[in-house]
C-alpha cells in the first residue's frame, strides 16, 4: 500500500534495529500487563486466555468423541456425558468462537490497519478483558461446582425448572461475558468511524476492517437481547418468575425466539471476522487486489443485516406457525447468496495472481473448500422440507462444525500464522506449519464428514447411547479417528508457535512482503504503533502481479539463491531491489 509517512526518515522497515523498544519489551512487569490500555497487549491477554479455554473445550470434545465409539459408552455416565457436551458447547461458543478472531486478531489489528495509535476507548477495552475473565471464571466455577447439563442452548423449561445442575452460575458468567463482547463492539465501531489515518477513506479500508466493523454492529444489536433472555431464565429459576415455563403460565417457545434472535447473528459474529481474515490472506498471498472489493464489503454488511431476519430457521419444527417458517426459509436462502458471492470472489482473486503457497495461504485455500461445504449444507437446513428430517441430528452438527471449525477456526489459525511475526516479532517454522495446515484439513474432514451421513440416517444429536441403532457405529468410529488427527494438528502449532517465541528467527517489519498499514511499522510494533501517523494515498491491496513476476525472474537471473529455506528473506531482498 502506498502509505507514505509524513517524514520518510522514520519509515519503519527491515532496517529497524532489533533493540528498539516495542510494545512487548517496553515494560516487563505484571502490573504493566494487567493495567495496560494498549490494544496489542489486550489482544495478547485474550490470546493466552482464549487458547486456554479452547484447550478445555477440546478436551470435552475428545471425551465426547471417544465415548461415542461404543454404542453404549464406556467412559461416562449419561449425566456426565450431558455435562461434557454442554461444557464443550458453552466454552467453544461463548469463550472461544465469539471472542477468538474479534478480540484477539481484531483488537490487535484494527488500530494498526487503519493507522491509529490505539482503540477509541483503551480503558473500556481493558474492561472488556476483565469482564471476559470474570464471566469465564463464573462459567468455569459453575462447571466445576456441579456442572451444567442443559446444552449451550439452555432451552426452557429444562434449564429453568428441571435441570439439577449449576445453570444459574453459568448463565451469570455468560451474561457478564456478554458485556465484554459489547464493549469490544463499541470500540470497533467508534474506532473505525473516528480514528482512521488521514487519507484512509472507507473504500481504502482493508476488508478485515469492514468485517470487524460489521461484527461490531451485530454484537451491539444482538448481545443485549441474549443477555436479557438469559437473565430471565435466572429469574425464573431462582424466583419462579413466570416467563417461559408453561407450568408457571409462561411460553417456552418465546425463549427460543429471543435466544435465536441473538444466537443466529452470533454465528455471524464468529464467521464475519473470519471472512475478513480470509480476504486479507487471499489478497496478500495471491499478490493481487481482492476481486470485487466493493461487492465483498457490501455483502459483509448485507450478511450482518439479513442475519437478524433468519432466526426462525432454527425453529421450523418448534411449533412456530407454518407461514412464519416459509418466510424465514425464504430469507435464509437469500442470506446464502452474499456468502456464495464471497466464495466466488476469493476464487476469482486467484486468477492471474502470483500465488505463494505459504502456511496462511494453505489455511485460506482450505477455508474456501470447507466453508463452501459448510455453507451449501446450510441450504439443506434452510430448506423447509429437508430441515424437518435433518434438524436436531448429526447433520446439523456436521454443518455448523464445517462453518465454525472449517470456517472460523481455520481462518483464525491462518490469521494467527500470518500476523504471528507482527504480534511476536518471531518467525514460526514454515515447513512444519505448512504440513500441519494440510493435516488440519484432513483431520477436519475425517471428523465431520461421516457426521453428515450418520445425521442423514437419523442419529439425533446430544445422544449418549445408540445401542438400539448399531448401524450408526462405523461412522462414529471414523469420526473419532478423524478427531484424533485433528487434535494432533491443533497440538503441533501450539508447540511450534510457543517454541518460536524464544527460538524463532527474528521477523522483519514485513516478512511476507504484504500490503497494509500494519506491515509498515516494526515487528513487533512500538507501543504507539506508528512513530508518525501514516498518510494513505492509494487503494488497499495495491499489488502488481506482472511486475512482481518480472522481478522474480530478474532475481533468478541474478542468481539470488532461490533455495533459501526462509522464503521471507528472498522477499526482503527482492523488496530492497525495488
Amino acid at each position, binding site marked *: 500500500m502506498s502509505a507514505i509517512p509524513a517524514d520518510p526518515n522514520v519509515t519503519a522497515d527491515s532496517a529497524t534495529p532489533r533493540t528498539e523498544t516495542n510494545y512487548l519489551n517496553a515494560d516487563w512487569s505484571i502490573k504493566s500487563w494487567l493495567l495496560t490500555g494498549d490494544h496489542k497487549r489486550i489482544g495478547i491477554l485474550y490470546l493466552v486466555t482464549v487458547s486456554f479455554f479452547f484447550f478445555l473445550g477440546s478436551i470435552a470434545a475428545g471425551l465426547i468423541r471417544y465415548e461415542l465409539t461404543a454404542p453404549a459408552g464406556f467412559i461416562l455416565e449419561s449425566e456426565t456425558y450431558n455435562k461434557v457436551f454442554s461444557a464443550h458447547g458453552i466454552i467453544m461458543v461463548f469463550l472461544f468462537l465469539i471472542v477468538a478472531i474479534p478480540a484477539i486478531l481484531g483488537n490487535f489489528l484494527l488500530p494498526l490497519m487503519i493507522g491509529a495509535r490505539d482503540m477509541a476507548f483503551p480503558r473500556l477495552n481493558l474492561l472488556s478483558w476483565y469482564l471476559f475473565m470474570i464471566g469465564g471464571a463464573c462459567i468455569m466455577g459453575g462447571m466445576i461446582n456441579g456442572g451444567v447439563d442443559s446444552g449451550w442452548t439452555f432451552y426452557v423449561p429444562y434449564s429453568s425448572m428441571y435441570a439439577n445442575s449449576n445453570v444459574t452460575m453459568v448463565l451469570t458468567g455468560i451474561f457478564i461475558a456478554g458485556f465484554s463482547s459489547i464493549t469490544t463492539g463499541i470500540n470497533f465501531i467508534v474506532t473505525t468511524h473516528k480514528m482512521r489515518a488521514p487519507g484512509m477513506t472507507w473504500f481504502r479500508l482493508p476488508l478485515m476492517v469492514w468485517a470487524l466493523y460489521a461484527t461490531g454492529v451485530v454484537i451491539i444489536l444482538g448481545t443485549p437481547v441474549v443477555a436479557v433472555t438469559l437473565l430471565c431464565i435466572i429469574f425464573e429459576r431462582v424466583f419462579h418468575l413466570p416467563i417461559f415455563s408453561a407450568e408457571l403460565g409462561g411460553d417456552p417457545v418465546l425463549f427460543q425466539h429471543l435466544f435465536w434472535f441473538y444466537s443466529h447473528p452470533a454465528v455471524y459474529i464468529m464467521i464475519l471476522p473470519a471472512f475478513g481474515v480470509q480476504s486479507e490472506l487471499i489478497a496478500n498471498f495471491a499478490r493481487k487486489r481482492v476481486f470485487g472489493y466493493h461487492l465483498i464489503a457490501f455483502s459483509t454488511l448485507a450478511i450482518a443485516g439479513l442475519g437478524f431476519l433468519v432466526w426462525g430457521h432454527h425453529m421450523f419444527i418448534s411449533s412456530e406457525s407454518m407461514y412464519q417458517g416459509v418466510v424465514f426459509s425464504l430469507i435464509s436462502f437469500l442470506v446464502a447468496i452474499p456468502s456464495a458471492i464471497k466464495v466466488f470472489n476469493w476464487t476469482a482473486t486467484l486468477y492471474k495472481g502470483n500465488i505463494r503457497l505459504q502456511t496462511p495461504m494453505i489455511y485460506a485455500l482450505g477455508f474456501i473448500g470447507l466453508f463452501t461445504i459448510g455453507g451449501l449444507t446450510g441450504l439443506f437446513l434452510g430448506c423447509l422440507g429437508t430441515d424437518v428430517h435433518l434438524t436436531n441430528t448429526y447433520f446439523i452438527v456436521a454443518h455448523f462444525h464445517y462453518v465454525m471449525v472449517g470456517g472460523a477456526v481455520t481462518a483464525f489459525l491462518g490469521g494467527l500464522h500470518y500476523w504471528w511475526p507482527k504480534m511476536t516479532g518471531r518467525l514460526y517454522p514454515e515447513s512444519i506449519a505448512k504440513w500441519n495446515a494440510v493435516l488440519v484439513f484432513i483431520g477436519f474432514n475425517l471428523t465431520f464428514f461421516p457426521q453428515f451421513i450418520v445425521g442423514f440416517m437419523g442419529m*439425533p444429536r446430544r445422544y449418549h447411547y445408540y445401542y438400539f441403532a448399531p448401524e450408526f457405529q462405523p461412522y462414529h468410529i471414523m469420526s473419532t479417528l478423524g478427531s484424533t488427527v485433528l487434535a494432533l494438528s491443533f497440538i503441533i502449532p501450539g508447540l511450534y508457535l510457543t517454541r518460536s517465541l524464544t527460538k524463532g528467527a527474528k521477523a522483519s517489519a514485513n516478512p511476507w512482503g504484504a500490503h497494509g498499514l500494519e506491515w509498515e511499522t516494526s515487528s513487533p510494533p512500538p507501543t504507539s504503533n506508528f512513530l508518525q501517523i501514516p498518510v494513505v494515498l492509494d487503494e488497499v491491496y495495491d499489488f502488481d502481479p506482472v511486475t512482481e513476476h518480472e522481478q522474480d525472474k530478474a532475481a533468478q537471473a541474478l542468481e539470488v539463491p532461490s533455495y533459501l529455506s526462509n522464503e521471507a528473506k528472498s522477499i526482503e531482498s527482492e523488496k530492497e531491489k525495488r
Partner: protein
Amino acid sequence: MFSNFPATPPQASSFSREHDLIFYALLALTVIFTVMVGIGVIYFVIKYKRGSDADRSRPIYEDARLETAWSVIPLILALIMFYFGTKLFITMRVPPADAQEIFVIGKQWMWHVQHSNGVRENNTLHVPAGKPFKLTMISQDVIHAFYIPAFRAQMHVVPGRYTTMWFTPTQPGKYHLFCSMYCGTQHSEMGGTVVVMEPREWANWIENGGQSQATLTLEQSGERLYKQLACNNCHGAEDNMRAPSLYGIWGKKRTLTGGRSVIADQSYLRESILRPHNKITNGYSNTMPVYDGQINEEDVLKLMAYIKVIGSSVGGPSSSGTDTAAAVLNGTKGTMSPFAANAIQYQNSSMRRVDSTPTTRSGELAVNAIAAQQEAKGN
C-alpha cells in the same frame, strides 16, 4: 456387505421419497458447486503459482457482468429449492381430513401413545401401512421431539400447547423412534420402535387391545407348542410303533416297563416330558429325547394343559399370528451389522440400572389396554 453398512435411512412413509429427491437434488448442487470451486482453486493455484510463466497481464478486479451472473444464478437455484422444500413442508404440516388421530404424551423419559379406541402403548407406536395418521402431541414436563427418521417426520412436543404431525406409513417393518430434543439425563434412551404393520394385521392388533394375536388359552398355547416341538410326530391319535398315544391319558393308570404302574398325574407327565427315560411305558423302548433344559416350566405347563384335554375338542385350531409376531420380533436380525453384536451384548448384560423404572426402551406391551378395553365392553 452394504446391507451391514447402511448410509441412508429406510423410506417408510409417503414423505420419504419426495424428501429424499429434494435432499439428493441439494446434494447434487453441493457437489457441483464444491467441485467447481475446488477445481477453480486448484487450477488457478497451479497456473498462477509464484514463478510460473502464466500470462498475468490485464488482470480483472471488478466485473459487473460476472458478479451479477454469480449472484443471480445461485439466487435462481436457491429459489427453486425453496419452492420444492416449502411445497413438501406445507404437505407435511396440513394433515388430510381423513387422518386418524393418535395422541402422544412425552415425559421424562418415555413416550406414551394413546390410540383412539383406547389402546395405549409406551415407547412403541403401531400403525398400519397405507393409512394417514395425525399425531396430536403434548409434553408433561420439558420440550421433547417426536422423531421417526424412516418417515422423515419430526416435531417438537412442547409443554402447555398441542403440536401435530401426520404421516402415511408405506412400508411394513420396524423403525426407530427417537426423542430428538435434548430433555435431560436419559434423553438418548427416550425412544423405542415404530412398528408398521400390514393393515389386516394391524386391525387384529388394535382389536385385541394391542396384542399381536388374540390371547390364547393355556390349552391353545399347549397345542401350538405340541406341534412346534413335533410331539405329534410320534404321539398320535393311536398308539403306534414308536410311542403310545396320549389321547385321554390324563388320570389313567399306566403300566411301566418292569410291571410297575403309575397314575398319569402332573408329576408323572412333567417327568415324562423332561426326563422320559425314567419311566418308560411297557412295550416301548427309550427313544424319546430329553427335554430337560430344552423347554422351560412355562412350556411344560402349557403342554400339560393340552395333554389334559387331548382328544377332546377343546384345543381347536388357533388363529394365525404367531408367525407374524415372530417375524416382527426378529425383524432386524437379518440386517444386523457386526457392530450390533457389541450393542446387544451390552443390552443383555445390562438392561440394567433403569430396568425397574418405566423409562426403559423395552417394548412394553400394553397390558393396561386390555383391562381398559374390557372395562369399556362391560359398560
